[in-house]
């Protein structure tokens, strides 16, 4: 009697072939993107999304073509912060044009499609058992988005990942070895501990971990024009990956993020200068040419 591997194909359902075709279309769609960078942490609330947006802004200011895919489908924040909550999805010849911010950063965020008063829902044949299929479905959705939108010729596509060390690794598996990871922590042992777990998990796979950024490393007091401590934290991190920089917290920047308005004077602030340094470190680690793509 024949065994499973003696039979070519699956008799017509083509499930495996369709999944393989989906992956091929994703690869083709991202062929013009020079670098895929996933910004993750494992820990929630450390400022991944804020850092992603403002790093993208710093890179865009250097003339690079940058886009963000907000991969946090259940808690999307890029639409609000980047000011694309009312984005219009325009059909191109075969794909959807990627909405962009006023400074030319392409942004896809579920927050442009689903109001904040609503949660992301999927049709389901099985009720009350979402823990068995939800992650698979969310990754299928990520694949659909990667195939559906025109990413075009980009220097960087940045993925703003959801929290969860295990999720970070799932994204590494899904996005493949082309994707490099930038991890975000804050000066707290709790956060560093979670990020260390992400580092340990990612180190078992082929993806490159570019380093980490310590966010909220103090807060910028506009009255004193000085950066003051925010966390009382012993010593430095032992994450054993390069530190690409430290970025202080700026309440004014946070306020602008809430309204989706860019902070015009950001480059002149300590936060802006810190982001500039991180952007340069990121470019150095990716070995991106000094000359941006024309």
């Amino acid at each position: 009697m024949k065994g499973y591997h003696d039979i070519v194909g699956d008799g017509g359902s083509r499930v495996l072939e369709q999944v393989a075709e989906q992956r091929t279309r994703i690869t083709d769609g991202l062929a013009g993107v020079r670098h895929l960078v996933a910004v993750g942490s494992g820990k929630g609330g450390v400022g991944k999304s804020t850092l992603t947006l403002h790093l993208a802004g710093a890179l865009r200011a250097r003339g690079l073509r940058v886009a963000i895919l907000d991969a946090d489908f259940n808690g999307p924040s890029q639409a609000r912060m980047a000011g694309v909550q009312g984005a219009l999805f325009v059909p191109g010849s075969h794909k959807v044009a990627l909405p962009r911010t006023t400074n030319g950063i392409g942004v896809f965020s579920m927050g442009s499609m689903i109001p904040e008063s609503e949660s992301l829902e999927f049709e389901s044949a099985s009720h009350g058992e979402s823990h068995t299929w939800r992650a698979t479905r969310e990754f299928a959705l990520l694949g659909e988005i990667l195939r559906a939108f025109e990413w075009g010729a980009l220097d960087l596509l940045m993925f703003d990942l959801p929290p969860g060390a295990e999720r970070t690794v799932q994204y590494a598996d899904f996005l493949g070895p082309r994707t490099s990871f930038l991890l975000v922590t804050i000066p707290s042992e709790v956060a560093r501990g979670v990020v260390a777990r992400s580092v340990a998990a990612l180190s078992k796979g082929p993806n490159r971990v570019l380093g980490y950024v310590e966010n909220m490393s103090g807060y910028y007091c506009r009255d004193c024009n000085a950066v003051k401590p925010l966390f009382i934290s012993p010593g430095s991190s032992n994450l054993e990956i390069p530190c690409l920089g430290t970025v202080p917290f700026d309440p004014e920047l946070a306020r602008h993020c809430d309204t989706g308005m860019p902070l015009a004077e950001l480059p002149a602030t300590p936060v802006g200068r810190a982001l500039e340094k991180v952007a340069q470190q990121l470019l150095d680690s990716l070995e991106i040419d000094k000359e941006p793509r024309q």
Partner: protein
Amino acid sequence: MKFLCIPCDSPMKLQTVGPPERGSLSVVYACPECGYEMAMLTNAYETQVVQSLGVRIGPEAAAGTSTATSVGVSGGKCPFSAMIPGTEDVKAGEPTPVRWTSGAEARLANIPEFVRPMARTGIEKFARERGALEVDETILDAARDFFGM
């Protein structure tokens, strides 16, 4: 999953897929040698697992077409189309009907179903704001220049 006709030692071929009923798919396979047919009846969990992959099951899936026997596992609809709320409400609030040329409709049809309702609503609003009551490819290109990368 593969099915083998034991008497013929021959792989069975997918024949039809019945539309989901209470979370169950009816998938009929037949042996090409002896013609024996069998049906695989999935439970809701099995249906959901396949549905979550975003694939379609049916004899015509290879050709990328949709027929009565080649249905999406969620009933022929895009598995993500239900996740965007409020599109019907938005449509109900439209003040003036906007026509779509066949070329513009073709471009809309080319994009994934889960984005389509929002794209249609937004483009029609964009057209109305410019005094146009017809969406053609010129309008689409203008909207793309205005909003897109």
